[in-house]
């Protein structure tokens, strides 16, 4: 298809369907028939009128009758052709019929020459000769689309005339007779040329017609593709607008940079955050947004980005705002690479984290203050009270001792609270590291029971191991597991009725060891169950005041156990009370 433009006319001609070309030629021949019929009829009538006076009137009329019959037959043929449904399919047949009609037509004139010429006057002979020449010439345009038909037609006229002239016995006529075949040959040659022209014309017409068809199919396809492309383009534009809107309205700073680091576009958030108008930033190097002392770092990272074409996240860059105040932004930088692998541009998205960093710094400072500045005076307070309460400084009044004990207990509670807050802060900021070791669970449980015996005594509750303890080890942080056990045992003691026992069980579940702490307390209130492992939660703040506790203990336990790949939970105990348990894996990766 693509090279049709370069094809020559003859190449194109050869593409025409010969059957269609023939059909077109036949149609052309039949279109010319009314002219042939009319000319024959008119010339026949004139000839009849001119000849009838001198010769046997009946013979001339008979000839006229033959001409009329032939023209009628030709008319019928034309009529039949025009009514024909499949002109193209039967073109050969119509051509044959036309050849017969043309031969008949020509022969009727030949008959006139053969029969009448000899007995005519000189003037009439000239008239008839002129008429024959004229009729033969009329045949050229009429039968031009098929030179053999013209040859038949002209032979029908000129054959008998040639014979009559040649045998007339007149030297002039013999000479004229000799010119007749020449005239015939010239006419046939002209008809032949015309046939070729017609043929070529029709072939070109069909070839171009087919090309046109091909082109129209191609055109339709192109049209369809254009519609699809248009739709795709609209979609791309729409999503482009949407993206532009996202960038424009985004609270995050978005910059588009070229591979050299020149700013192409910035969004509104950029202007607001850095205090520069878009026009001031666009077209200039992005390094304006990097503090000079960090620019070598920036250059190195930019070079890495351009060479690897890998996006980078979490880049912290210090930017001087227009008013000189430093901001720290965290950037995600994404190179846009086309299918050929060329770096088109770089999209940088930045988030101002100055306030966040400041908050983190303050939190760290606060934590440090909490851990040192609060604990140091508490050390003095609790230490002094302990010395007083221990009695080594001498006997004190009972009422005073009661108060110093209240002071010591609450000092201790404040210290526990500080320790718990520090623990949970450490856990949540990921700064708590465990020191895992192999631990025999039964030993750990017994150690925890000894450590908390004093606490149990205070609530008149005893701790005991119930059932068989499997001799198995887990991997965990001993100090932290003791902390968990202390929390569970002290909780159980606090909520147990006086004189009851808190039972500890160790169960081997194959992959896990489960340590359960069972009390006979009042159970966990329904509305507290969902948040029991949350921060600063206690079922009843009155109990808190009365029995101590920070409301952070279980939250810390849950996080510690989970850090050791374990699970913690609780359930109601059959016969009243609660069971708190934790599972630790016996196999560690």
């Amino acid at each position, binding site marked *: 298809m693509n090279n049709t433009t370069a094809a020559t006319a003859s190449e194109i001609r050869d593409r025409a369907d010969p059957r269609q070309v023939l059909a077109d030629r036949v149609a052309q021949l039949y279109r010319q028939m009314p002219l042939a019929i009319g000319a024959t009829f008119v010339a026949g009538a004139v000839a009849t009128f001119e000849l009838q006076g001198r010769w046997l009137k009946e013979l001339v009329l008979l000839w006229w009758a033959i001409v009329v019959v032939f023209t009628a037959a030709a008319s019928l043929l034309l009529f039949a052709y025009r009514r024909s449904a499949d002109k193209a399919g039967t073109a050969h047949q119509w051509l044959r019929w036309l050849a017969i009609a043309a031969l008949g037509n020509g022969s009727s004139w030949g008959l006139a020459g053969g029969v009448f010429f000899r007995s005519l006057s000189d003037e009439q002979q000239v008239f008839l000769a002129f008429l024959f020449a004229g009729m033969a010439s009329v045949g050229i345009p009429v039968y031009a689309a098929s030179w053999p038909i013209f040859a038949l037609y002209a032979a029908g006229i000129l054959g008998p005339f040639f014979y009559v002239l040649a045998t007339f016995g007149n030297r002039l006529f013999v000479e004229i007779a000799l010119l007749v075949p020449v005239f015939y040959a010239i006419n046939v040659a002209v008809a032949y040329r015309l046939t070729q022209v017609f043929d070529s014309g029709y072939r070109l017409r069909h070839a171009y017609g087919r090309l046109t068809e091909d082109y129209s199919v191609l055109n339709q396809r192109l049209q369809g593709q254009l519609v699809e492309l248009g739709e795709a383009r609209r979609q791309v534009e729409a999503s482009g607008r949407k993206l532009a809107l996202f960038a424009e309205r985004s609270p995050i700073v978005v910059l588009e940079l070229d591979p050299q680091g020149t700013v192409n576009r910035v969004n509104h958030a950029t202007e607001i955050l850095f205090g520069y108008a878009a026009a001031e930033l666009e077209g200039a190097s992005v390094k304006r947004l990097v503090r000079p002392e960090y620019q070598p770092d920036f250059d190195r990272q930019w070079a890495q980005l351009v060479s690897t074409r890998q996006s980078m996240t979490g880049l912290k860059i210090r930017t001087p705002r227009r008013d000189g105040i430093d901001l720290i932004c965290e950037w995600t930088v994404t190179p846009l690479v086309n299918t050929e692998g060329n770096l088109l541009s770089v999209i940088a998205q930045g988030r101002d984290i100055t306030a966040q960093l400041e908050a983190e710094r303050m939190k760290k400072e606060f934590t440090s203050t909490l851990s040192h500045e609060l604990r140091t005076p508490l050390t003095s307070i609790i*230490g002094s009270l302990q010395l007083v309460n221990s009695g*080594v400084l001498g006997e004190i009044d009972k009422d005073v001792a009661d108060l110093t004990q209240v002071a010591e207990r609450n000092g201790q509670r404040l210290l526990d609270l500080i320790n718990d807050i520090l623990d949970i802060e450490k856990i949540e900021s990921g700064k708590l590291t465990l020191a895992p070791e192999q631990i025999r669970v039964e030993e750990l449980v017994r150690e925890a029971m000894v450590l908390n015996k004093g606490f149990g005594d205070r609530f008149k509750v005893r701790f005991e191991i119930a059932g068989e303890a499997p001799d198995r080890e887990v991997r965990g942080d001993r100090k932290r597991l003791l902390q968990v056990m202390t929390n569970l045992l002290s909780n159980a003691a606090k909520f147990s009725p006086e004189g009851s026992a808190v039972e500890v069980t160790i169960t081997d579940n194959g992959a896990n060891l489960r340590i359960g702490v069972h009390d006979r307390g009042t159970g966990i209130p329904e509305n507290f169950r969902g948040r029991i492992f949350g921060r600063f939660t206690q079922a009843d703040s009155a109990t808190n005041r009365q029995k101590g506790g920070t409301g952070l203990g279980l939250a810390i336990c849950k996080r510690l156990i989970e850090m050791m790949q374990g699970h913690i939970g609780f359930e109601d105990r059959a016969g009243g009370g609660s069971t708190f348990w934790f599972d630790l894996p016996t196999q560690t990766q």
Partner: protein
Amino acid sequence: MPDRPLTRICYVEDDADIQRIVRLSLERIGKMTVEVVGDPTAAIDAMLAFRPDLVMLDWMMPVLDGPALFRQMKQRPETSALPVVFITAKAAQRDLDELLALGAAGTISKPFSPKDLPEQLRAIWSKLP
């Protein structure tokens, strides 16, 4: 285990309140002789004069903190062999481990119980070579 009981303690601590509590605890409960030094820069001289069995160092002190003083002691032949126990509110396990690796005899975290302090020190003393 040393062949004599723990009786002489030198305590370097800048906080006067804690100095008093520790002195009372060790003297009254532990029946020990205590030399308290408030200025860490004068601590080594005090040790040379007092000749303690064991030295207790506070971690956080102005001018010269516990670890720095400990390193100075290590450089002096007269004090390099003295067993040292750190008392600290700073509970970073890594730092404590580092001091133990440097040769500290033990650590006691603040807040400590004055009732238990003499017992804790004797436990550390008993584990010394």
